[in-house]
């Protein structure tokens, strides 16, 4: 008998197939969702700025994901992600409640774009209210939730940004950004 069959034969499932009740009632907030999102980002040490400002201040050379190069207004000037001073990516959506970005892999994008360069610039065109709403939008591809810059508190609990991932996270909320509330399950 191989390990798979041995392990499965040793697991005794309970006779009754009970269900379970999940819980996703988050705290409410009074701010409009975009303001809440900005407030969370600021608390996490991330910055928000306009598209023009981000493009002006973006360190070069920058790697830019192909699918948002048009929106960004500038082609990628660095294809070696280890050498890029910044990585510019799109997002599937952002979460107002937690200040989280949902970034996904795929053709024309690099998984390392939001990770290897010291600066990550993320363009947001859709904001959902809560984490459970974002979980329903996670694409089939490998994806990542990003909440603030890379950090560690391993040395005496002192917070240090940028230990392995980007030390600076810059979020651009695009002018035509939509706020979606899918709480009704829509």
């Amino acid at each position, binding site marked *: 008998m191989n390990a798979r069959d041995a392990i499965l034969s040793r697991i005794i499932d309970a006779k*009754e197939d009970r269900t379970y009740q*999940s819980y996703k009632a988050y705290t409410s907030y009074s701010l409009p969702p975009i303001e809440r999102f900005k407030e969370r980002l600021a608390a996490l040490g991330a910055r928000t700025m306009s598209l023009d400002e981000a493009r002006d201040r973006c360190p070069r050379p920058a790697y830019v994901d192909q699918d948002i190069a048009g929106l960004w207004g500038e082609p990628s000037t660095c294809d070696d992600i280890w050498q890029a001073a910044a990585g510019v990516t799109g997002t599937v959506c952002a979460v107002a409640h937690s200040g989280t970005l949902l970034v996904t892999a795929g053709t024309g994008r690099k998984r390392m774009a939001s990770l290897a360069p010291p600066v990550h610039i993320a363009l947001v065109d859709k904001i959902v209210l809560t984490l459970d709403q974002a979980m329903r939008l996670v694409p089939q591809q*490998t994806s*990542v939730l990003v909440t603030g810059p*890379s950090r560690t508190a391993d040395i005496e609990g*002192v917070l240090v940004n940028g230990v392995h*991932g980007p030390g600076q996270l810059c979020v651009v909320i695009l002018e035509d950004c939509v706020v979606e509330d899918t709480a009704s399950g829509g």
Partner: protein
Amino acid sequence: MSSRVDTFARSMPTATAARVRRATRLVADKRMPTLSSVFADPEAARTAAADTKRYVLDNLHRLLLEFERNAIANGIQVHWALDAAEARETIVGICERSAPKWSIVAKAKSMATEEIHLNEALFKAGYPPVETDLGEFVIQLDHDTPSHIVAPIIHKDRFQVARSFERAHVGPYTQVPTELALQARHYLRKQFQASKIGVSGVNFAVASTGRIVIVENEGNNRLSTTAPDVHIAVMGIEKLLPTEDDLALFLPILAGSATGQQITTYVHMVTGPRQGAETDGPREVHLVLLDNGRTDAMASEQRDILKCIRCGACQNICPVYRAASGHGYGHVYGGPIGAVLAPSLDFAANRELPFASSLCGACEEVCPVKIPIPDMLVDLRTKSTAAGSWAMFATGATNPNLWRAGLALTPWLGGIGAKASGWAEFRDPPKGQGDFRRWWRERA
């Protein structure tokens, strides 16, 4: 009390003890305010998390098969390992097939790989692992072991880290934590670029989508599992969740309980290797499903311990852990969770650990999945006592007069015990510490 833990706590330098106490208290104090800032009712969230994990254990057979089917469809290569040796063999085998000898293995922090002592096996096989989490990197440089399941160098200070980095030529001596962290970033970047294989643990595996989910703050885990050509993940079979929807509860409850964050900086949801025209990401993703005593624990009174999501909240709150650190327990899993989990996975080697508790109940109160740790400790004590020479200790410990007499006699008893039986193997009696009650009376 357990002697292993007792003795260690007494031998711990005052400064180390103070650091552990301060760091654990800091995180423990942030837990409830954070959970309250996320969930409308944190208690209801804990109840739901416990209920979900109970469902997972009750349906594990079916969920594992559902997960395996979906993971394979995603392109993940699934392996099963009955014990630590089989897991190590499988991982070394993958290394040998995918990279020349002496290739570096980028290693992300993982308790499962600690549990199976993977690093030694990789070294022996000629695939040197480099720990890339800042804390684990320091542990590896110092030939030390992690003392906390979330904060591995909770027992060290910045000066010790600086000396280790200077000695290992990571960077010049500095007392600034930011500079130390950036020295590690610079040093480990080169390792990521050179590594052909990355090894990680898993926090959650989602049955309905076949995805593995890994949480972290530094980004070293994403680098370890994205930059090399081959990603090998190791997970205990109990880590399943039915659907991705469940992550909306488990991600915040794990982060809030572990570090006092609303959610970790990164939540890496790995579907599989690079697809189509993607230009980065691993070409192969392997997943090792590890039993290593878990199916035995499932069939035992300690079944609920498999609900554990490794947040470390019980360690942070525990007065015994705070006094002894994880090292006191002499097992990769220390603290209340370790006192149950270690003997549940390997009873003979860890049967004294259930005695390392005052049964104050704080661990159960903070546990995000409501594991009744104190009840389990009492059960395990009974089992331990019934298992042999512990009867003598149990009688002594439950009868105050005998206990006092025993303490007075301990200098003698140690010598006798060592010769007379296996007693001293597990328990070095306290050495002439005097009468605690008398000391307490005088102090009060």
